[in-house]
């Protein structure tokens, strides 16, 4: 108790990260196996590559060249072996290395995801705090309505609506595409609005749990201004569950990105994956899904570390509150 066990804490964090990484690797291996099986059952990538018109002999030769003629287990082991060296195979649609295609598209997706995430946090958190503080008043009710709308309107539909109103009827923004800040506004808004309601309510609820806490009263008793009470004592404690959910939500964020990219012709890995699925581009679909899975694993790892930073109790090995 008396001396601060820094080394022990770091060991604990290290162990935790190693465990997470181990599970993450197993998840990825399992995902790859399942995916390969599903894609195998869904059709012949060689036929998709060669097109409907190609003759039997041509398709057979292409199948051999691409290695899709081998037993599934062999394909799996070969895939894993290559993936470990950073080679995710070759897209059948574009006849290019999958890793390169993903790498080319990743910045656009990251930009959009970051914009959406920023919207969730920068709008969701303040509004959530505001409605929590003004619980039961008009602002709170309005916030609730907005939140319910936000998570009940499908992303795809919301995107089309914004596109129609703000790009076509009122030509303020580009209809779609990529290249300037103006292009980011509508997709970012779509993704942001689609998820922000959830965070508004989450922060709201979390804040309502924190506000009656005695340490908030202590802070007030110190003579702190209401703003300082909320910011220094309420906010950080209210953020703990929000951070957890944000980590788990990476998957939802990426899902929203796929729809948003499709609506706004945003050239990210999502719209590329849609093309890949339609064209039965097995390696590209596998690569995209595995990359996404790896991102989700990584996000959860970041949350673990962030939790460690935010909550001193976790550092000493207590359970999450």
């Amino acid at each position: 108790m008396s001396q601060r066990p820094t080394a022990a804490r770091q060991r604990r964090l290290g162990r935790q990260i190693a465990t997470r990484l181990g599970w993450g690797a197993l998840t990825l291996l399992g995902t790859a196996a399942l995916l390969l099986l599903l894609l195998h059952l869904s059709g012949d990538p060689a036929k998709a590559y060669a097109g409907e018109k190609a003759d039997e002999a041509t398709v057979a030769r292409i199948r051999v060249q691409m290695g899709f003629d081998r037993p599934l287990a062999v394909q799996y082991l070969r895939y894993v072996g290559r993936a470990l060296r950073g080679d995710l195979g070759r897209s059948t649609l574009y006849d290019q290395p999958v890793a390169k295609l993903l790498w080319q598209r990743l910045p656009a997706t990251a930009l959009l995801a970051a914009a959406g995430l920023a919207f969730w946090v920068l709008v969701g958190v303040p509004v959530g705090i505001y409605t929590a503080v003004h619980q039961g008043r008009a602002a709170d009710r309005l916030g609730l309505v907005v939140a319910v709308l936000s998570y009940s309107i499908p992303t795809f539909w919301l995107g089309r609506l914004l596109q129609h109103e703000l790009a076509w009827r009122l030509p303020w923004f580009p209809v779609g595409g990529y290249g300037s800040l103006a292009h980011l506004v509508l997709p970012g808004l779509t993704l942001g609005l689609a998820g922000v309601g959830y965070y508004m309510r989450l922060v709201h609820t979390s804040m309502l749990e924190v506000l009656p806490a005695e340490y908030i009263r202590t802070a007030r008793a110190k003579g702190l201004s209401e703003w300082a009470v909320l910011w220094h004592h309420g906010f950080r404690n209210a953020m703990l569950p929000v951070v957890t959910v944000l980590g788990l939500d990476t998957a939802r964020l990426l899902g929203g990105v796929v729809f948003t990219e499709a609506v706004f012709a945003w050239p990210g890995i999502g719209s590329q994956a849609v093309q890949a699925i339609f064209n039965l581009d097995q390696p590209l679909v596998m690569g995209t899904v595995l990359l996404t899975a790896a991102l989700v694993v990584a996000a959860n790892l970041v949350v673990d570390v962030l939790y460690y930073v935010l909550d001193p109790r976790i550092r000493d090995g207590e359970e999450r509150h």
Partner: protein
Amino acid sequence: MLLEIRDLAISFRAGRTLQPAVDGLSLSVAAGQTVGLVGESGCGKTVSALAVLGLLPPAATVPRGSIRFDGAELLTATPAARRALRGARIALIAQDPLAALNPVHPVGAQVAEVIRLHGGGTRAAAWARAVEALREVGLPDPAQRAHDYPHQLSGGQRQRVGIAMAIACRPALLIADEPTTALDVSVQAQILDLLRRLQAEHRMGLLLITHDLGIVAELADQVTVMRAGRVVEQQAVGPLFAAPREDYTKGLLAAVPRIDRPVERLASV
């Protein structure tokens, strides 16, 4: 007179009706004096303390009465004026030190916060004074422990931090709301000792809120007994224990558990 409460009434809005919580409380605390406010839980004593601090919940209203601090009326003071008093001139010691301390900030920072707020000065100076305050309340190795988080301290140590936070700005009036209820019996005595010593050193007025007549007997000069929002009995501590006037007070006295006896003996050693 440091604190003068006259005919205070507090009600809570419940739907369309008003539920009275305190009705006609009057008491006064002089500098260096300890006044016990005694009653069962829910009798209105904590609400009264919050009214003095100006921290009543939004649902509460004060239909009548007066609270004067150092001669100035608090109930009509501006929120900013009341904020300036809180922590600086009137301080609170809370019941459960674990709940009352913010789990995500080091205890030193929580003490330094109040020092900086009311005294200004640099972060480093405030930290040094916070360490001093922690030393004053008897936290062992305060320079080191100031970096600890609440969950790393024992219950008694946490309450010492709570007291340090309260006395850091040398308030004239200390409000202690059940300061030992959440603590082990052995620690209770130490904390009471500490309170007594600090009060004497700094000539603070102490409003001691408790359901525990044993503690009142230890510390208080004057006692006010409340029941269901009303004052039942009000007199000096000696006469009250010797000859309670009201049946309710007698009942309370009879209910004092025997286990408090060792506390008296320890305290008198």
